[in-house]
């Protein structure tokens, strides 16, 4: 029974119970505004009756950012906290349900300073006797019994908590100092700071900052190193009686130096990271979202290119200063494409704003009705008294009206008294009474709403217009050759033939995705035909370099919507780009650009987001449709070939030979074999001149053939392939264990001809 229970317990442990913290999507907050929605975090997977410790902090935020809850039912604040009022951090305990109710009511107050606001939420089953600092994600354990500094330092190192080794607490910021002050009830607390090695040279004595010099001489401010946190009491440290060790909460909230033989309480700290998201505590869960406060530009690219695993593209971000036609490269860095083609170039975007020749009109509370809005038939028209417009009214491109609207406007006309602008959206706050400046808005009748206001002008600051360029590089060349194979080319051939033969139309539905026509049209003439296939074949067999004019621009970029909108009849009219323009001029703070890239020749669209599944080339094609012939008769212009196999003991030998090559410069066969009974060993080639021969084992078939591209010679009946297989068991004969299917042949002028195996 014990064994069974052990196994059961192991299974439960292995499976876990799936505790998670869900975080909301990033938001853009309005500057200097209270009571903004910060909900969206929630806990799940915890035992509903467990008392959890939950901590919320702002690891990154402009000074003055605070948050608060409107619902705190059932929650108990941790030592040093209260549940009410504005916070920059808080820790509390409660059940999962009560915590989720509080998280759903989270509000944020933003300062006037723009920047990123990271809200971090952490949760774990409440560990009694430990305090969690949500700002740095560390746990702190106060030890109330007194001991010497050196004993405290050693004792701390002998402890572990949630998989982390403890260390005597370090105090590296006012924030951490305040945390210890507020949460640890004892006073005169040893912390890891000493000048035992050199008098007056105060160094951090434990933890990740061990050895850091923060002060070079005694005295409250003397020798304090800029950038290092010091908080000494007046006159301290003074080394009175050989004092080499520091305490905090000395006579209040400051530091003092004491000798080692003092018996003081101490605090053990757990955690070595600075960002709570990096915490590696066991059975501890955390998540965060970084929002923007004010005009912080965030650009995210979703580059859709499935199944690229190990290559790199050179991404260049160019920008165009306002009023200039010059695109200037700001970076040229190879970006790794990982997972499903994700490539982050966010850091390459130039987020510096430039002053433009347009103006923002700000309508702020005042005494006189200098402006009004007229609502009529769904249009929203702003009127500004022209005495307040200090430049040509047409230069105003944006307005900020109290708290009811902030965004672009279009100048429509001026009658000399009023300048009129169209606002492109409805403004509910104008009429629903929710504006905090409602007392400055007067319903003047006839759908007019007048503003008691002042009107000021400022030049717009806008982001530069930018563009993302993709360039293939050596590594892309390798990728290209790895992914697009001769078989792909013949897939294109086959699709072309299936569509209507060599003289048929190239439009239609032969490909499974219309975008494949664009990829297959390698010469870019709007027609997919056998010349495209031949040209690509020359390229991927190495006889035509990547710099060939028709293949110079391999990467093609479309917006994701354009990509998805390509049809089998519109593919040759879809404009393709070699760069993707990013228009950041409208002042929107957050951009997500969904773009798709593909490259010429990838006719199987192994990287297409619309081509799900394995993403690799489908090699198990029907050999009947592989044949380029639409009838089964033999023509004098066909290439003729013969095959024969022979089993000698455990070696099976297959010979494929051209009997009449008919000026073919390229041929390809597929040799299928039963891999449960045979192992492929090798292929030996005999062919004329400088032909490129290939034989690629795909596991259950071998793609083989030859190609000559010197422009003069062609294949002849000396072309022969001898394939060797080994039987996996003793056999008397092998009829049907190998079957040979011709793919097709190509002549010098790119025409396709049939192969007949006789």
């Amino acid at each position, binding site marked *: 029974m014990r064994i069974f229970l052990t196994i059961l317990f192991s299974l439960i442990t292995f499976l876990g119970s799936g505790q998670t913290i869900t975080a909301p999507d990033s938001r853009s907050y309005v500057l200097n505004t209270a009571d903004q929605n910060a909900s969206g975090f929630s806990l799940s997977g915890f035992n509903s009756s467990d008392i959890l410790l939950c901590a919320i902090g702002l690891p990154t935020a402009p000074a003055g950012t605070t948050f608060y809850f409107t619902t705190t039912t059932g929650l108990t604040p941790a030592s040093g906290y209260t549940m009410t009022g504005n916070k920059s951090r808080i820790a509390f305990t409660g059940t999962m349900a009560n915590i989720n109710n509080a998280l759903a009511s989270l509000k944020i107050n933003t300062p006037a300073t723009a920047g990123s606001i990271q809200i971090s939420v952490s949760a774990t089953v409440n560990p009694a006797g430990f305090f969690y600092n949500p700002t740095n994600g560390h746990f702190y354990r106060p030890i109330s019994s007194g001991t010497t500094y050196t004993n405290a330092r050693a004792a701390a190192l002998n402890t572990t908590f949630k998989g982390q080794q403890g260390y005597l607490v370090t105090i590296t910021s006012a924030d951490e100092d305040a945390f210890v002050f507020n949460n640890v009830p004892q006073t005169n607390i040893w912390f890891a700071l000493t000048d035992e090695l050199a008098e007056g040279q105060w160094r951090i004595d434990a933890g990740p900052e061990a050895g850091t010099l923060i002060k070079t001489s005694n005295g409250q401010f003397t020798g304090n190193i800029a950038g290092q946190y010091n908080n000494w009491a007046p006159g301290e440290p003074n080394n009175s009686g050989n004092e080499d060790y520091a305490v905090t909460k000395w006579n209040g909230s400051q530091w003092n130096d004491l000798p080692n033989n003092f018996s003081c309480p101490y605090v053990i700290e757990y955690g070595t990271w600075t960002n709570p998201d990096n915490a590696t505590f066991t059975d501890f869960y955390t998540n965060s979202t970084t929002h923007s406060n004010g005009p912080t530009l965030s650009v995210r690219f979703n580059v859709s290119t499935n199944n690229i695993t190990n290559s790199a593209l050179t991404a260049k971000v160019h920008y165009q200063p306002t009023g200039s036609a010059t695109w200037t490269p700001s970076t040229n860095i190879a970006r790794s494409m990982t997972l499903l083609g994700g490539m982050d170039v966010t850091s390459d975007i130039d987020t510096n704003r430039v002053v433009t020749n347009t103006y923002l009109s700000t309508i702020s509370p005042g005494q006189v009705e200098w402006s009004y809005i007229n609502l009529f038939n769904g249009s929203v028209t702003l009127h500004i008294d022209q005495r307040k417009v200090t430049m040509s009214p047409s230069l105003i491109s944006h307005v900020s009206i109290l708290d009811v609207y902030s965004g672009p406007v279009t100048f429509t006309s001026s009658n000399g008294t009023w300048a009129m602008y169209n606002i492109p959206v409805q403004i509910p706050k104008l009429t629903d009474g929710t504006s905090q400046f409602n007392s400055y808005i007067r319903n003047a009748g006839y759908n007019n709403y007048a503003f008691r206001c002042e009107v000021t002008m400022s030049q717009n600051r806008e982001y530069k217009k930018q563009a993302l360029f993709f360039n293939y590089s050596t590594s892309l060349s390798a990728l290209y050759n790895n992914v697009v194979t001769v078989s792909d080319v013949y897939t294109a051939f086959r699709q072309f033939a299936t569509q209507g033969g060599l003289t048929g139309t190239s439009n239609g539905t032969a490909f499974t995705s219309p975008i494949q026509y664009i990829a297959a049209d390698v010469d870019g003439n709007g027609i997919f035909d056998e010349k495209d296939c031949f040209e690509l074949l020359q390229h991927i067999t190495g006889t035509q370099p990547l710099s060939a004019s028709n293949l110079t621009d391999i990467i093609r970029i479309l917006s994701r919507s354009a990509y998805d909108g390509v049809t089998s009849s519109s593919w040759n009219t879809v404009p393709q780009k070699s760069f993707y323009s990013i228009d950041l001029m409208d002042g929107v703070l957050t951009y997500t650009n969904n773009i798709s890239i593909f490259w010429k020749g990838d006719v199987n669209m192994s990287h297409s987001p619309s081509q799900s599944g394995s993403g690799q080339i489908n090699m198990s094609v029907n050999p009947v449709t592989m044949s380029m012939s639409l009838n089964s008769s033999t023509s004098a212009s066909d290439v003729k070939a013969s095959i024969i*196999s022979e089993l000698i003991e455990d070696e099976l030998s297959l010979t494929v030979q051209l009997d009449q090559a008919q000026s073919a410069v390229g041929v390809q066969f597929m040799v299928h074999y039963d891999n449960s009974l045979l192992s492929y060993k090798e292929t030996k080639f005999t062919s004329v001149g400088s032909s490129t021969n290939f034989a690629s084992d795909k596991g259950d078939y071998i793609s083989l053939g030859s190609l000559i591209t010197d422009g003069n010679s062609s294949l002849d009946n000396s072309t022969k392939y001898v394939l060797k297989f080994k039987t996996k068991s003793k056999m008397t004969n092998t009829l049907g264990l190998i079957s040979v299917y011709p793919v097709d042949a190509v002549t010098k002028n790119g025409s396709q001809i049939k192969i007949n195996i006789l």
Partner: protein
Amino acid sequence: MKKALIIMAVAALFGGCTKYEIEPVPPPIIKDIFSVSQSTVTNAQTFNFTLPSAGPYTLTLIDSLTKQVISREKIYGGAGLNTRNIYTKTIQSKYLQLVLLDANNNQIGKTTIITK
């Protein structure tokens, strides 16, 4: 005894029921395959045929639709009854011609094969 029961219970928990494999019954040999106009075959089908004399021969499989030769094997047969196999796993055509030629390319036998 209790330990034995526990072991059995754990074994039953992880091992599940014993799976009894059913040995496939080999298809019957097709006798004198060239004496009939067509035969239906499965993978590794055994068939026999009669040769007039010992020597090299070729067995050829031709796709009935495209007329392409898809497999051809050189064999050394003895006079009288010979037994061979035909493997169909790699063959993607349902209808085939099986042709037996002697060393001088004289046709000794021909029949239609339908793969199952």
